[in-house]
């Protein structure tokens, strides 16, 4: 694939995922007690709900920030963390829908939409985006454009 296209796709994924995680983190910080309840409603170890509610927003902010503002090595770590987080969300939402629970997603704090197969599909897409970002995001070349091998056929 054309390197320029790869770079544009990688940058788009970075901005989209990083922005989404920052937005999700800020949204969840608004009402920590309500968010604890949203997590408990999933009925997956509800006793851990307050711990998740306390830590998850800050993790999302940090991972989102790493994707948007950090050098390549930390961006890669951010992409791995994002894939892990979104994978856990996918399992939680999928299990809630499969068990027929009538609960809201809690994806962006309290007052968000009820979980449905659409939510599962959206999370699946986000996991795929994080994995794709891990593959497509490349470090900035330290060599000037004019001295790249592709433009220096005489040296081969």
């Amino acid at each position, binding site marked *: 694939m054309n390197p320029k296209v790869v770079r544009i796709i990688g940058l788009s994924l970075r901005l989209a995922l990083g922005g989404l995680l920052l937005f999700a983190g800020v949204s969840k*910080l608004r*009402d*920590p*007690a*309500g968010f*604890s*309840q*949203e997590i*408990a*409603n999933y*009925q997956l170890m*509800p006793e851990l*709900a*307050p*711990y998740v*509610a*306390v*830590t*998850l*927003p*800050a*993790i*999302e*902010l*940090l*991972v989102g920030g*790493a994707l948007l503002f950090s050098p390549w*090595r*930390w961006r*890669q*770590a*951010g992409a*791995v*963390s994002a894939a*892990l987080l979104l994978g856990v969300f996918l399992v939680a939402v999928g299990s809630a829908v499969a*068990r*027929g*629970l*009538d*609960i*809201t997603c809690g994806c962006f704090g*309290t*007052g*968000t*939409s*009820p979980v449905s197969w659409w939510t599962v599909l959206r999370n699946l897409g986000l996991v795929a985006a994080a994995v794709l970002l891990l593959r497509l995001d490349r470090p900035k070349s330290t060599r000037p454009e004019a001295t790249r091998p592709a433009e220096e056929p005489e040296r081969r």
Partner: protein
Amino acid sequence: MPGVLVRAAFLLLAGSLGGAAINAVRPDGVGVRGFVASSTCGAGPERVGPRVLGPNAALTLCGDPGVLVADVRSAARFAEGHVAGAIHLPCRASGDALGGALAKLAGKHTVIVYGDSTDEARPVAASLAQRLDPGAAVPPDIVVLEGGFRAWDQAGLACSSGPCPECQERLGSEP
């Protein structure tokens, strides 16, 4: 790749510690030890907990200003028909909705909770009982309507229909 995994673990750990620190300093932080979930909807029948009241016995309490009736079913089921004067308090109520519902308990001596069946309402009623203000002089008596809304409806007792304003507000805020 190992370096990436170490950095990823660092991000997750630093985020967790940062979150704990933020929670410790904010005035509305979550009390991780004293947390009680407001409901465990769908968790299955609970055989101990709030007492059960038959529809006719519940009817004798209706009209008493010290009695609050709460419907734990979905907004759609609530809109189709509910006990006259009931508030909507679904399993997924949280944040402002839950706070508003709990505020309405002030000054009530009895709360009648119902779902589509007795078992649907039991966990929510049990959870409501746990969340009552421990400082209240006389906490309200939380009871479950036996047979749920179906029994009430079949007995031909007072019902009304249409969405509640709170349900509309909640649905309107959902993307």
